[in-house]
């Protein structure tokens, strides 16, 4: 079994503040962590490897040299191989360029050793787009299951798996062929306390570094800023909502309060409906 997990190092957004003037994240002094969903993805891959009785878990990330720290944390959690895709030329990538680089990297890894399953976290907590995983599945032209919460069956011989995915109404149970790409929720696997020997192994491990040209040439037109059509038009902090009116039943009487409340609701309702009525008439 060969699983590839794509991860991202992100600023710990529980500590992040927004600069009200520029509308951008203040990253200075904010600790970097493995995107929380991604560490569950790594754990899911490692547990799957244990379940099927062996194999390899390869972790990849695209990011600055510092992102090697995040890879080492994945090695602690049980990953066997870690690849850092890092080059200034990748800088400024949006989700399109990122999905190109990761898909291309996975193709190369697959050529070395066929990949059976690919894991992504459901989204990164810094951008929250949830686009890169699906983008990679599309580029690789393989089945995609988003918001995965459990792998019920995983049959390497028959090349099939049964995966549970979270939807608004409940859980969908899907059968898929392999290879498949999952983007996972945290429930997919609880993160275990890494054993000490794994920490020692990680402390001695050096992730492989792939640049824009070596060992694999990436298409310069599709990476970094050049490969990123996304433009951020504006970023701002929404003004906090003001509190509502407080009507006292004791003072105004129940009927008056209800009448006032209904009036407010009706007014809001009508305002919302206006464009629709416009179309109808």
């Amino acid at each position: 079994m060969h699983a590839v997990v794509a991860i991202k190092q992100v600023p710990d957004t529980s500590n992040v503040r927004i600069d009200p003037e520029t509308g951008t994240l203040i990253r200075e002094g904010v600790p970097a962590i493995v995107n929380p969903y991604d560490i569950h993805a790594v754990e899911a891959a490692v547990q799957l490897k244990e379940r099927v009785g062996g194999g390899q878990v390869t972790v990849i990330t695209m990011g600055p040299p510092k992102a090697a720290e995040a890879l080492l944390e994945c090695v602690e959690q049980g990953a066997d191989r870690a690849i850092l895709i890092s080059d200034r030329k990748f800088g400024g990538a949006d989700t399109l360029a990122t999905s190109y680089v990761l898909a291309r990297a996975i193709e190369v890894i697959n050529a070395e050793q066929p990949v059976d399953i690919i894991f992504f976290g459901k989204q990164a907590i810094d951008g929250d787009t949830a686009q890169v995983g699906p983008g990679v599945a599309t580029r690789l032209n393989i089945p995609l299951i988003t918001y995965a919460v459990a792998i019920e069956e995983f049959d390497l011989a028959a090349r099939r798996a049964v995966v549970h995915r979270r939807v608004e109404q409940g859980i969908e149970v899907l059968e898929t062929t392999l290879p498949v790409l999952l983007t996972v929720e945290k429930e997919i696997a609880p993160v275990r306390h890494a054993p000490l020997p794994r920490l020692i192994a990680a402390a001695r491990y050096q992730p492989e570094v792939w640049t824009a040209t070596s060992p694999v040439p990436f298409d310069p037109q599709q990476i970094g800023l050049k490969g990123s059509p996304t433009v951020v038009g504006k970023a701002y902090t929404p003004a906090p909502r003001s509190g509502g009116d407080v009507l006292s039943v004791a003072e105004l009487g129940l009927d008056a309060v209800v009448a006032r409340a209904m009036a407010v609701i009706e007014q809001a309702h009508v305002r919302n409906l206006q464009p629709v009525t416009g179309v109808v008439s």
Partner: protein
Amino acid sequence: MTGRLTFDAIVVGAGPAGVAAALTMARGGLNVIIIERGRFAGAKNLFGGVFYTHALADVLPDYWERKPPFERPVTEQGYWMLSPDSAIRVMHKSERYLKEPADAYTVLRARFDPWFAEQAAAAGALLITRTTVTRLLKDERGRVIGVDTDRPDGQVYAPVVIIAEGVNNLLTQQAGLIASDLPPKYVALAVKEYINLPAKELQTRFGLSGPREGVAIDVFGDVTLGLPGTGFIYTDQSGISIGVGMLLDEFVTHRLRPYEVLERFKNHPVVRPYLEGGEVREYGAHLIPEMGYDRMPKLAGDGVMVAGDAAGMVDALHREGTNLAITAGKMAGETALAAHQAGDFSAAFLSRYRRKLEGTFVLQDMKQYRRMTDFLESSPQFMGTYVNLLNEAALRYFTAHGIPKRTMEHEILKMVRERRSFTGVAWDMLKLMRAMRG
């Protein structure tokens, strides 16, 4: 897990003592593991901020080329003695402080400790973070043979363990080197804030001509409401470290909240202007073991040594600790190297560590000031009465009232008599001298 995880030496804690020990042993060719519970080396550490380089130079002669993350050299230092509305300031500034590297630097531990740990790692020591040592492993004869951690498969073995666990000395107790928890009478609590200020503004306020000058101020008197303890103000690269330390006992007896004491200090009329407009970026609190020479733990047992705060290696009077820890760590490391050569890890052999330390400032200073903590606690007038008295006297002295000078002198002396009799003063001075001479 197949096989035991075995090293030549285990160091518990990646503070200055542990890192100095690991660095010394790794350079001596031992296979060393440092186990640190924090997210990174120094994550759990805090101190006022003055770091003396002599001990570092001993462990790492080429430290200057390795670009340590110092804040500012200390080129001016001294004391502020606060009364509630005034201050007597005695500062020493000298051109002779202006050298590179300087004798002392202000330091932020969150920056310094990771750098120091990196040097040990570069020498070959293995640094494992986010892992807590939960107990010592002992053989049937009670000799320490390794440690257990909070990780699965978390046991590590080595013929020698150096405990540098810090003030919370649970393992030192487990090793049988000290009998019990430190009593609150011998533990100080320090609270500190780091206040950000643009370097230019900071330099103007403190009269510094550039980034290669810095100030270290120890503050007495009203800063601790006249109770035994001190405050401090240190200039960092682009900010101020300000804090207060008092014995835990005093906080409890007088029902003081540490952060309120600090807030009061920050709002003292003499202090406030220095901080104005600054933004608090960090705050923290830490315990300091001030048990003194007579209550230090035994420093070695079978297969085990202890260094740094865990061993109470603090000279509270001179706000020193980090340098004691580094020197002690180095001595413990050297002793472990010798033990490996001799193949002898018994308490008898490892007791060389203490003898080495007796030949250094570490134990000599601690011995000299052995009575200091008791003295200050038994003589609260030093921080209260005398400091206020000095401020009052200064006010009379520096103000012209149209009173003859002779009368003024009498008034000052009368004030002294009223607040503390002449015999009281004489007695206090005698006690102070005895406490200083050890």
